[in-house]
């Protein structure tokens, strides 16, 4: 029957209080084994305190060619940054 084990994306929380971060991917027959493999592959040196595994095909990504239309609108809105405003020195730190 030989079919390849599906691909999983692995997210690791490095320390308490931090976000899970994408570290890579691996093949595993099911979610439980994916967690075990992720432990062996991505946390051999205390790199994590928590693991998420997500089937790669469950991820929907923005398209690289949409980069312009997708992100341009916010690039044009400089007033969203605190540095846009001049606050007089007398007012103190804000």
């Amino acid at each position, binding site marked *: 029957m030989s079919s390849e084990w599906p691909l999983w994306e692995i997210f690791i929380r490095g320390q308490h209080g931090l976000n899970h971060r994408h570290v890579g991917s691996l093949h595993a027959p099911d979610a439980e084994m994916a967690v075990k493999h992720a432990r062996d592959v991505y946390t*051999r040196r205390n790199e994590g305190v928590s693991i998420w595994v997500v089937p790669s095909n469950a991820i929907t990504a923005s*398209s*690289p060619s949409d980069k312009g239309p997708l992100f341009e609108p916010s690039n044009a809105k400089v007033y969203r940054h605190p540095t846009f405003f001049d606050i007089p020195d007398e007012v103190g730190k804000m």
Partner: protein
Amino acid sequence: MYAQMVKSEASNDDPHLLAAFQARIDAGEKIEPKEWMPEGYRKTLIRQIGQHAHSEIVGQLPEGNWITRAPTLERKAILLAKVQDEAGHGLYLYCAAETLGISRDEMTEALLSGKMKYSSIFNYPTLTWADMGAVGWLVDGAAIMNQVPLQRTSFGPYARAMVRICKEESFHQRQGYDIMMKMAQGTPAQKAMAQDALNRFWYPSLMMFGPSDKDSVHSAQSMAWKIKMNTNDELRQKFVDQTVPQAEYLGLTIPDPAVKWNEEKGGYDFSEPDWAEFFEVIKGNGPCNAERIEARQKAWDDGAWFRDGLMAHAAKQRAAKVAAE
């Protein structure tokens, strides 16, 4: 290197797209899997990353050879951890190659059929415990020379895999040098064993960087694409310059009477390895080529029932879960 003589593919793409792509690379941007790339870039990278991954996996065999015979429990645990790292490195790299549109099984089959290569170095036997020292010190040392600059390579997944790998390689090289120090400071017989390991691994380590630049036909395109960061001769020189003083510290002799400091070029002079031997090993006629592929083939065949069994189990669990809902 771990990827030797990777032939770069020509591209028949739209010249405008090619120019825009090259401009991105020149600007230091990373190329990500779903973005447009020339077919030649994709194919060359699959070949290079695949070969690199295969080298990590096949590279477990010469060292795995000594796990059961390590001289102490501590040495055994360390060697085991090192070999496990190599499996991890292979996996990071396979995953990076897979983002380019080739499957893991396709790569494995290409390795077994001889269509894809692995580094020539792993076709040499590891005859004594001192070889574990020489492999860590020289082979991993040579690998680091190539992998450190590859952290800046243009393909994002490859660069990120290299960052992870480089963090771990330093452990590998140090454990090798530590074995060499112990042996070199040991009894005369132990020191002779260390010298013998250096004698046998010196030239094969120099071959890891691939043929001399004057005979290396694939460099220019790969360097323009930033998937090869330095020329073979540059890296080889750097390796020799780093290694000669380390050998002196051990009280061992590099098996090349031509090794001599050259003040003018600011590096050591040294002899070229026997390139005829290199090409024979690449062609499959090295001392261990057949044994290595046989071991990989056996692992692949013997593991088939296990891979399939876990898939069947996963399917059963899924069905049971659906039935329970």
